[in-house]
């Protein structure tokens, strides 16, 4: 009797086991499938605080409190309408871009405003991540804005980012060691003088965006262009005509292979150039104006610090200084675009720009403000305005990031540049980069 009985018990067991497996196995599969969805849902969007809509502003960490000032000003002016909240991105521009690009590409609806480096406009707009400023509100953020900064926020005729702050590099020199650079002062003269005096010239040679800034400036100053009709996107064509490209590369090579080059040139970024200049032993430095307030901390430096426009590459041909700064874009995934336009318009208002200039060292984009700036803090305001107005923006191309990497890849190390050959290599790599097909 029992032998017959046992298997049936086993069958019972197995049925129970199978049922259990089905139950738990199902839970396991469901868990695996649903987990990513839940993670995606966690982002939310269109949040409120005490019933007031929150506008999330993603922007890189900035010193000087000018972001916080803009936010508190606008929140006070728009009580009950919206609350702007800062969502901090990393301090380095490359890291900022990496993080915000991932959110935008993943259609993150929690992003409302984006604090954008001037070089991101074309890339973000082309990818469909930005909402263009409506015609009606456009004048409010573009009237009275300097030409370069306005162009930097524009792509294919539409304004995608409200110009907030601008920036450019000046030629800084030690008044106690040399006289003021005269008219048509060239890059070559700068290097020769430093070599003759056994002193250094500080520029940014690190394999990073700052190198592209320097290269593009020298190229444009020599009369060249990087990309023709950059606005056409992948249908644009690479400029980089031989003569100006060789002139720009020769200028870089001249400094890098001379005794005026800092030993740390290949890793020098804006901040390490500043530190190296402050240490002494340098005659010239090419850098943004943040170095001026910083020089006050070094005894005897600030009063001996002189400034001039970016040196020329070809004598008699005015230089085209670089253009930096932050614009405010509106994410196309945002759920409250009308509020975002109001918030962005509020952020870029003159008083906020003035604060950003005086406390954060970021020059304004509104031309009129240069007359109002405190001259004690900004004694170089007029040469700044002139430089920004004549500045050459980096190519407004959707593939800008690739183009910049192509430059960094080809030019490093600076001392090994062979101008005619490097120009040819750069042109062929840039052609691939423009189609975002280069392996970089």
């Amino acid at each position, binding site marked *: 009797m*029992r*032998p*017959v009985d*046992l*298997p*049936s018990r*086993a*069958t019972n*067991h*197995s049925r129970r*086991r*199978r049922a259990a*497996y089905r139950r*738990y*196995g199902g839970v*396991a*599969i469901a868990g*695996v*499938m649903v987990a990513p969805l839940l993670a995606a849902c966690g982002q939310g969007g269109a949040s409120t605080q005490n019933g007031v809509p929150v506008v999330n502003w993603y922007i890189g960490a900035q010193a000087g409190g000018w972001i916080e000032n803009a936010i508190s000003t606008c929140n006070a002016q728009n009580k009950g309408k919206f609350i702007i909240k800062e969502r901090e991105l990393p301090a380095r521009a*490359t890291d900022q*871009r*990496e993080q915000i*690009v*991932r959110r935008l*590409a993943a259609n993150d609806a929690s992003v409302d405003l984006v604090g954008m480096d001037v070089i991101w406009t074309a*890339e973000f707009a*082309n*990818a*469909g991540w930005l909402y263009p400023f409506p015609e009606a509100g456009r004048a409010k953020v573009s009237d009275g804005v300097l030409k370069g900064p306005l162009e930097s926020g524009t792509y294919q005729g539409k304004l995608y980012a409200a110009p907030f702050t601008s920036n450019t590099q000046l030629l800084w020199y030690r008044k106690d060691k040399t006289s003021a650079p005269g008219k048509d002062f060239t890059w070559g003269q700068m290097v020769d003088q430093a070599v003759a005096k056994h002193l250094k010239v500080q520029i940014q040679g*690190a*394999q*990073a965006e700052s190198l592209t800034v320097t290269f593009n400036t020298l190229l444009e100053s020599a009369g060249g262009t990087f990309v023709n009709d950059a606005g056409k996107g*992948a249908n644009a064509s690479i400029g980089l005509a031989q003569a100006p490209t060789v002139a720009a590369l020769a200028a870089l090579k001249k400094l890098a292979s001379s005794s005026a080059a800092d*030993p*740390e*040139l*290949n*890793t020098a970024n804006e901040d390490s150039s500043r*530190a190296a200049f402050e240490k002494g032993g340098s005659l010239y430095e090419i850098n943004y104006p943040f170095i001026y307030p910083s020089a006050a901390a070094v005894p005897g430096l600030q009063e001996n610090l002189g400034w001039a426009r970016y040196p020329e590459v070809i004598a008699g041909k005015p230089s085209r200084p670089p253009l930096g700064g932050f614009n405010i874009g509106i994410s196309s995934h945002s759920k409250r675009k009308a509020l975002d336009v109001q918030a962005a318009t509020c952020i870029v208002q003159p008083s906020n720009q003035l604060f950003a200039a005086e406390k954060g060292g970021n020059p304004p984009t509104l031309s009129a403000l240069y007359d109002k700036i405190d001259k004690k803090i900004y004694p170089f305001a007029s040469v700044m305005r002139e430089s920004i107005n004549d500045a050459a923006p980096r190519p407004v191309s*959707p*593939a800008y*990031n*690739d183009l910049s*990497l192509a430059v960094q*890849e080809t030019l*490093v*190390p600076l001392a090994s540049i062979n101008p005619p050959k490097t120009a040819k290599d750069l042109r062929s790599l840039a052609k*691939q980069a423009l189609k*975002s*097909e*280069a*392996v*970089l």
Partner: protein
Amino acid sequence: MTTVAEAPTTTASAGGHRRKQQLTDRDKQERRLGLRLVAPAVIVMLAVTVYPICYSIWLSIQRYNLRFPDDRKYVWFSNYGRILSSAHFWQVMSNTFIIVVISVVIELILGMALALFMHRATFGRNVVRTAILLPYGIITVVSAFAFQFAVSPSIGGFWHLTSPPLNNHSTSLFVIILTEVWKTTPFMSLLLLAGLATVPNDYVEAAKVDGANAWQRLIRVIVPNMRAAILVAVLFRTLDAVRIFDTVFIQTRGANNTATLSQLGYNQLISQLNLGLGSAVSVLLFLIVIFVAVVFVKGFKTDLGQVRGER
């Protein structure tokens, strides 16, 4: 089911007639139960490894860049062609190769010495072992920063006279390799120590009686008997080193042409959002890893099942 219960069985295991009959049935049941027990793990593995691998192979045959959403099409193997014909890729390959070969060789020799030392240490054994293993307990990012700071002229104490090492290609690679060696030699020596412990002492004693000196005992007796452990140690380290990312990312970020394969993949995928080209790089890296594993396992002619060390 009942028919199975009636069937006679030849199973040798002891027990009454009833039990014998029931065992075959139980065997089947248990096999089935076993499959069910591993099923969740298999499903999870499929979801987290096989699916992403197939997905990236699928991505790698497309032109697909999140920055150019409208321009998506199948390009078959042209992404691979573009990568293999790019000078940058071969620079990256050679960097990775240099780092792998030099660091693994140094780690093997140094790791073996440390393992012998730990094996022989007569007093303060625990202290010695802890001291040797300490670097391995430190997060790679932290050790990368530590070495970066150590060689920086403004922060660290070395290299005041010459140009800073992270300033040019070959010295940057040197610092990266140094960091890797410092960080992972303990891992190597730990695996080798486990292998040393499996070498029967009788063999060593016998060799001693036969008049073999210390070097001969090491090369002729100890090393051949711990071949499997050496294979595991070298294989794991090589696969790890091929995928090197964090140290380079922290110390140079690929500046001075020091980028590695993983970093190329990262740049393409994360920074450029170029899913097609980036996935192709990842697939190539995956193939290289498989190739290395196969070559090692075949080359050493050892049953990996003997020694199973997990990192």
